[in-house]
Structures are given as structure tokens and as C-alpha cells.
């Protein structure tokens, strides 16, 4: 019986003009988005690899100079595109793409693509993810809103009920019919997308491509299921097809357009992001003052005394290491906790904001899906934070190694310290620092961070199925 209902529903949908139009638009957009996304992605990968190789070469070829001057010359970390960024560009247009790694300073990433785009880029990216998040639900609504209420209006629902069909059979038959119609529109596109994926050389630097794609598929199927059953639930509940449509479109606009923005504003209210100018001024002042209120130069004076005591010497000249280098490194290290605190504050704020936004997913299923999609595509904040952390670790190591080298190699200069008397190192010394390599975050912690989002989607799916069962159960001969 269920299959008969499904077949009828499917045939009816496919014969309708609505289906042809929406399906054609959907396929066209998905393919365009995937192609454009892939083209952008491959350019980004090529440029990033060239740039990272270029900066490593420049580091080695910077010319003979003092190791500490080399630290000032510094190096760059360039952010690789996320492994599935051509499907979901996530936040990659809105984060910087390059970090300058130099002595004395922890830098933000610079070069945000959105700054080089026109104002209408703010309408959003035409990406595969965006289409599936916004257009797919609308497609489902369009194809399914008349399932019950349309039949009710035309009087056929009563007839069907009189044939001894149970409410449950009716519901699942309709779900199957609409679901199949949606599937034959979306799946070919997904297959083509996967084909593109096979072409992409992104698989080599990302862990578990198969896992990523499967988890993404599960998330999107759940999301589609939520809208399918919600559509059927509302359709079974309402008397007129137009009311069904208005309620569903209202909900669609609410979860897809209104809530993402509202959630972002709410999260900015509960955990305000500091303004750049204020944050910068606070951090610089904190650096001068010292992490614990003791200024760095005071700390260093105390450290010098200790050092003299430790080596049993009375003057810099007798120290077994180059004092200037020790000073440079120490002053560098006094700043680390300050950087950690202030940069950490921003990172924590962003994480808390994400959690608030995810929680708001309890009223809008698009939010948890969006988070999952970005994370698995490698274009969310977790990925960006990992990149920034790797870059900072690399920077601190670079500074330490160069100062260390200087400290050992220039001991003899202690006695004759002067501005024009310094050691000059060459490429061989600079080669102590290995090229920067970024390791994308592991999948396991990412799944852990987003387990609540998966749970949220699952909750929504159960809720919508439950609602559909309740409302379709209420359908009876007498009331129609």
C-alpha cells in the first residue's frame, strides 16, 4: 500500500510544472556553484603552495645577516584552503590568509578576501553548501506542501481514507513519494560533485576524506528529512494549501535567513568581541606593564643577577653565553603569557559565540547543520584557530632557535659589545629553521566539538517525524 501511495505521489509531483522548474533551477545552480567553487579552490591551492614555497626560499636567501636580524626579517605562514572548501567556503572569505611570523610580535592573519570584494559579496556565496542549506528545503516544501492539504481541498483525502488506508501508511507513502522526487533532483548533482572531488588533489593533505563526505551526507540527509516531515506535518494539520505554504515558507525564512543573523547578534551580545583599537591598546599596555605587574626590564634586571650568581661571575664579559641574545630571548618570553591571554581571549570569545549560536539551533535546524558543514569542509573557526596556533608555535620556535644560535656563537662578543660589532650568519644557519607546515586538525576532536550539533539535528528529525505522525493520525473521515 505504501508503495502505491508513494508511486501516486511521485507521479503527481513529476507531472506538475512546479517540479520541472524548481528541479531545473536547482540542478543548474548546484552545478554552477560546484564548478565555480572548484575553479576558485584549485587556484587557491596553487597560489598557496607557490607562496609558501616562495617565502621559505626567501627566508633562506635573505642575505647574510645577524641571526636576530633574520628573526626581524621573519617568515610567513600562508593558510591552505580547506579540503572541501569548494563545497562550503565557510568563513574562509572572512579570515586572513597570511600571518607574518617575526620577532617580538604575535600577528593577526592579514589579507582577507572579502576586503577585496564588492559590497554585494555580503549577499553570500553561491556555494554547494549554501544551495543545499537554503534551496533544498524550499524544493521539499514546494513539492510536498499539497500532500495532505491539497487533497483535502480537492476532496480526495476523504476518498482515500474511505479505501481503508491507515494514517500511517498514508504518511510514509507520501514521505517516500516526495522523498524520491527530491532524491532524483539532488543525487545526480551530488554524484557529479563527488566526481569533482575525485579530480581534486585535496585528498592528500586532509585526513579521512571518506569520513568527511559520509558525515556530511548524513547531516544533509537528516536536514532534508527534517524539512520533509515538517512539510507533511504542517500539510496534514492545515485546511488550506495556501496556509500550509505560508507557514512553511515562514519557517524556512526564519531558520535560513533570520536566525543565522539573529543568533550571531545574540552571541555578540552575550560574549562581546572587543573592538580592535581597544584590544590592541590594552594588550600593548599590558606588555609594558608586564603580565603580573612587574615590567619586563625590571624582571630582566632580577634575572641578570640570578644569572651572574648561577655562573659565579661579576660581569657580562665572563658569561659563557652572549648576553644580548639572552636578553632578546628573555624579553620575548616575558611577552608570551600576555599574548596568550589577549589572543586567547578573542579565541575563547569566538568559541563561546559559536556555542551560543549552536544552542540557538534548538529553534532553527539550519544553524547546527551550518556548523557541521563548515567544520567538515575545513573552513570553520576550529580549523582557522589550529592554523593560527601552528603558526605561533612555529614563530616561537624560530625566534628561540635563532636567539639560541646567536647566544652560543657570539659569546666572544660579550666583552666588546658595540652597535657595529655583531656576528653575521648565512644561509646554512637560517636552514636550522624547517619550512612551515600546517597540519589540519584531526577529525576526532572535531566530531567531539560538534557532537551536540549532530544530536540537535537528530532531535529535530525525531521531532518532525513525531509531529508528522501526530498530525497525520488526526486525519479522519469525519473531519474531512
Amino acid at each position: 500500500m505504501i508503495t502505491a501511495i508513494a508511486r501516486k505521489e511521485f507521479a503527481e509531483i513529476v507531472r506538475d510544472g512546479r517540479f520541472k522548474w524548481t528541479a531545473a533551477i536547482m540542478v543548474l545552480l548546484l552545478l554552477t556553484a560546484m564548478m565555480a567553487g572548484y575553479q576558485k579552490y584549485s587556484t587557491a591551492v596553487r597560489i598557496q603552495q607557490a607562496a609558501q614555497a616562495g617565502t621559505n626560499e626567501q627566508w633562506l636567501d635573505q642575505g647574510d645577516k645577524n641571526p636576530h636580524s633574520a628573526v626581524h626579517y621573519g617568515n610567513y605562514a600562508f593558510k591552505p584552503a580547506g579540503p572541501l572548501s569548494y563545497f562550503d567556503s565557510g568563513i574562509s572569505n572572512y579570515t586572513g590568509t597570511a600571518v607574518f611570523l617575526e620577532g617580538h610580535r604575535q600577528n593577526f592573519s592579514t589579507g582577507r578576501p572579502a576586503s577585496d570584494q564588492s559590497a554585494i559579496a555580503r549577499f553570500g556565496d553561491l556555494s554547494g553548501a549554501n544551495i543545499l542549506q537554503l534551496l533544498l528545503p524550499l524544493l521539499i516544501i514546494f513539492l510536498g506542501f499539497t500532500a495532505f492539504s491539497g487533497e483535502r481541498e480537492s476532496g480526495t483525502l476523504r476518498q482515500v481514507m474511505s479505501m481503508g488506508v491507515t494514517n500511517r501508511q498514508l504518511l510514509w507513502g507520501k514521505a517516500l513519494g516526495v522523498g524520491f522526487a527530491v532524491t532524483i533532483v539532488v543525487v545526480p548533482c551530488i554524484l557529479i560533485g563527488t566526481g569533482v572531488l575525485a579530480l581534486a588533489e585535496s585528498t592528500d593533505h586532509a585526513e579521512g576524506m571518506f569520513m568527511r563526505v559520509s558525515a556530511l551526507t548524513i547531516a544533509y540527509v537528516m536536514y532534508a528529512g527534517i524539512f520533509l516531515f515538517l512539510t507533511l506535518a504542517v500539510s496534514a494539520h492545515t485546511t488550506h494549501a495556501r496556509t500550509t505554504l505560508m507557514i512553511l515558507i515562514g519557517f524556512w525564512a526564519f531558520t535560513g535567513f533570520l536566525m543565522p543573523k539573529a543568533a550571531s547578534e545574540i552571541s555578540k551580545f552575550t560574549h562581546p568581541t572587543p573592538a580592535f583599537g581597544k584590544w590592541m591598546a590594552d594588550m600593548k599596555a599590558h606588555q609594558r606593564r608586564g603580565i603580573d605587574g612587574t615590567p619586563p626590564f625590571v624582571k630582566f634586571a632580577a634575572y641578570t643577577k640570578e644569572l651572574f650568581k648561577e655562573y659565579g661571575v661579576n660581569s657580562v664579559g665572563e658569561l659563557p653565553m652572549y648576553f644580548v641574545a639572552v636578553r632578546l630571548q628573555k624579553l620575548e618570553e616575558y611577552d608570551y603569557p600576555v599574548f596568550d591571554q589577549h589572543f586567547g581571549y578573542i579565541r575563547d570569545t569566538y568559541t563561546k559565540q559559536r556555542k551560543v549560536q549552536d544552542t540557538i539551533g534548538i529553534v532553527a535546524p539550519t544553524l547546527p547543520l551550518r556548523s557541521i558543514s563548515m567544520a567538515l569542509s575545513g573552513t570553520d573557526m576550529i580549523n582557522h584557530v589550529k592554523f593560527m596556533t601552528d603558526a605561533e608555535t612555529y614563530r616561537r620556535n624560530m625566534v628561540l632557535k635563532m636567539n639560541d644560535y646567536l647566544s652560543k656563537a657570539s659569546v666572544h662578543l660579550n666583552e666588546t659589545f658595540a652597535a657595529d660589532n655583531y656576528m653575521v650568519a648565512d644561509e646554512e644557519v637560517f636552514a636550522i629553521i624547517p619550512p612551515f607546515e600546517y597540519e589540519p586538525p584531526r577529525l576526532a576532536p572535531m566530531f567531539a566539538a560538534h557532537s551536540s550539533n549532530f544530536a540537535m539535528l537528530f532531535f529535530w528529525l525525531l521531532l518532525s517525524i513525531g509531529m508528522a505522525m501526530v498530525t497525520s493520525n488526526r486525519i479522519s473521515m469525519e473531519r474531512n
Partner: protein
Amino acid sequence: MLKLIISHEARQIARTSALWSILVLLVGAIIFAAWSGGRSIERQVVGAQAATEYEDGLRHHLREGTKKYAAKVEAEGGEYQFAMVRHAPGSGPPQGTNAGAVGAETSKFVTLPPTGLAALSVGQSDIQLNYLPVSLATTLDVTKWLELENPVSLAVGSFDIAFVVIFLLPIFILAMSYDLLSSEKERGTLAMILAHPISVRELMASKIISRAAVMLAVVLSFGVIALLTVGTGLDTADTWIRFSLWIVATLLYSAFWFALAVLVNVYGKNSASNGTVLAGIWLILVVIVPQMVSMLATTIYPAPSRMELTIAARQAQTEAEKNAMAKLDEYYYDHLEFVPEGDKKAMDFLTLAQANANSIEKAVRPLYDNFQDQLNKQEELVTRFQYLSPAIMMQLALNEVSGTSADRYEHFLHQVYAFHVEWRAYFSTKFLQRYPLKPEDYDAFPEFEYQEEAFAAVMNRLVPSLLGMLILFLGVVLVPFIALRNYQVAAR
């Protein structure tokens, strides 16, 4: 008759609970948007203030040093000297006497003030840093900073009044008017009404006018309330001129959506299919077309890669450093008057650093201009393609009206570049002459004051969007106006 119908419609609308919920939602959205827009602009102002205060504080500190030094020189006699060493030791002249140090180690923050309406349309102002540190560093160093904000929030965009007007208002308008005629027809009341001495045109007009009046009264009155609470510069004519343009834009945009609902009602079938068609059109005009145009713009005129720019700037720096001596010669060749007496080449660190910055600036400037060129071309393309979607026209118009457009920012940047040149010239000249900065010189440092764009320039960019919306509206409204003469009441 028209009056009668309108008052009847108004009574009917007032008794529909759906309408009240729509209005409540709309008002709620406007209040929320005004609040969040206000917060966003306030944050920018706070950031600019804190940054300015900090850097001014640093300069103040340096000035205090020179004051003490001046007093000491006065008391003990001797010459007021220049601190040759950058990190001056305790006894000698303080660092504040060294113009090179003052210019390089402190920044002058230059600020783009928000217009009175900025809180109503945040536009691009959340990704443009509205306060930039000008120092002896290169242009790249001046413009590389970004405002802090969660990238996820930037990606979804602000919930400002522009969003409410562009995205939500059409949904509300369509929800109110998608079944104007079709519902009467479905209920069978249309034939009855038309039995009275009234034409379909009149009926339609009165239905639309009553709905539009309610809707726009709400939007405009809450718009005024929003302006009064989160707007700034309420005592200036500029704010009110901008606000009246905001009203014009909002009226034109809403008129288009009402006209569209009428059009679909005239040609549509039943209410449900009207709803589907209108929702589809909304999606295409407000979401898909803008995204397509944006994709087109970035594909045809892609911005050069920032990564490549970084590498190129680096190359210039490396070469500059390797040829330090030669560059220094070249530098002094440009400024023969500054060659210090006694030694032909001052090998001190700051001079070198400046020579380097100079050559990097020279090498990178053309690359940098390339970004602005491509961005301008993208904007041009968007300007040309805006007529495809009223949402694009409206967004551009609101950004212009609120002063949060890319063009106003570019206008600001040009002033910053000019000021940067002035600032550099002031400090590097004093430094190369080894002129010791005196406390009173601190009052004579170059000052920056943003010069607002000419109003005509804003109008030049605004008028095409407004005209485009007007023409689109007229085009859409004319068709049903003609078609309604032969409207068939009987179900087709």
C-alpha cells in the same frame, strides 16, 4: 466608493490575526535591528577612541621627556641636542627629540567618522577598519589591519535595518498580499463585490493601498524611532537629508513588491500557486541573482592574490636590504639637502629602515593599486548588473545613504594616503636634518581631518539605484493596470 472599500478593507485587515502577527514580527525585527546596528557602530567608535588615546598617550610621554630635557638644558646651559641613538640611554637627550623614533614608534590614528545613519545600514563598515594607524611605515602597514569580529558573524552579515527592509519586508508584504484576488475568488465573494459599482482596478487599488498604508506607516514610524535612538548627528541637516533619501528608497522598494503581488494575482491561478511563484521570485531576486552577480564579478575581475602581493613585497624588501648601501645612496640622491654633515652616509639604523621602507613602498605601490583597480572594476560591474535585482539596488542605495559603501571608504583611503605622505615627509625631513624635536614642535605635527565627500558625488552613485527601482516598479505596476481592464471573474 474607493474610500468605502478602503475603510472596509482596513476593518477587515484589522480583524485578521495573521496580519497582527506579521506586524508584531516586523516591529520586533526593526527594534532588534536598530539595537544591533547601534551596537555595531558604537563598537567602532569605542575602538577608534581607545586606539587614538593609546597612541597619543605614547607621544605625550615622549613629549614629557623633551620637556624635562628642555628644562634641564635651560638650567644647566648647553645645547638642546638630538638623540642620535634610537633607544636613548638615561643621561643623553631623550628619544622624544628624535623625529625618526617619534614617527616610527608611535602612530597617528586617522578616523572615518560614521554618518548619522550608519547604524541603520552597517553595510561594509564591519569589514573596513574605520581607524588606521599612520606612521613612518609603508602603506601596506597602514592598511593591513582588520577590525576584530567573529568571521562567522561577518559571513552571515549584520542584522541591521537594511536587512529587515531588504530581506524581511518583502516577505511580509507578499504574505499580506499574495491572495488579494485569488482568495476572494476562491471564497466566491469576488463576483459579489464586483456586482457593486466598482471596477476590479479600483478594488485592487483599494486593497493594496490599505495594506501598504498599514505596512509603511509601521516601517516609517519605527524607522524614525530607530533614527532617534541609534542615529547620530540628529542636529545636522546631513542626517535628515540622508534619512529622507532612506525613506524614498524604502518606499520605492516596497512599492515594487506590492506591485509584484498584484501582477501575480492578476495572472496567477489559485492562492497556493501564487504563493509558490512569489516565494520563488523572492528567492531569485533577493538571494540568487545577487549571489550570481557577485560570483560573476569575482570571476571576471578576480582580486590579485594577497599571498602573491606579500611575496612580491618581500622580494622588494630583500633586494632593498641586500643593496642597503646603494639604496641609501639613492635615497640621499633624492634628498641631497639631508646628507648629514661630516659623514657622507649615515649608517644608523633608522635611516636605513627609512630607505628600505621607501624602496618597498615604490616597489609595492603598483601591485597595491592593482587591488583597488580590480575592486573598482567589480563595483562597476555590480553597478551595471544591479538592475537585475531590486535587492542589489536597494543594498547599494542604503550603503550610499548610510555612508557605509565601498566608495566612501575609498574616498577616506585616498585622504589617508595623502596624510601618510605628509606625515612621512614631516618626520623624515626633521630626522634627516637631525633636527632635535622640541616640546612645542609636538603641537605642530600634521593633523588629519576627514573631508566628507561632496553631496553630488553621493547622489551620482545613488540616483541610478533609485531610478532603477522606480522604473522596475512602474514596469511591474503597468502590466496589471492594463490587464485588469479585461479581468475575468469567472474561474478560468
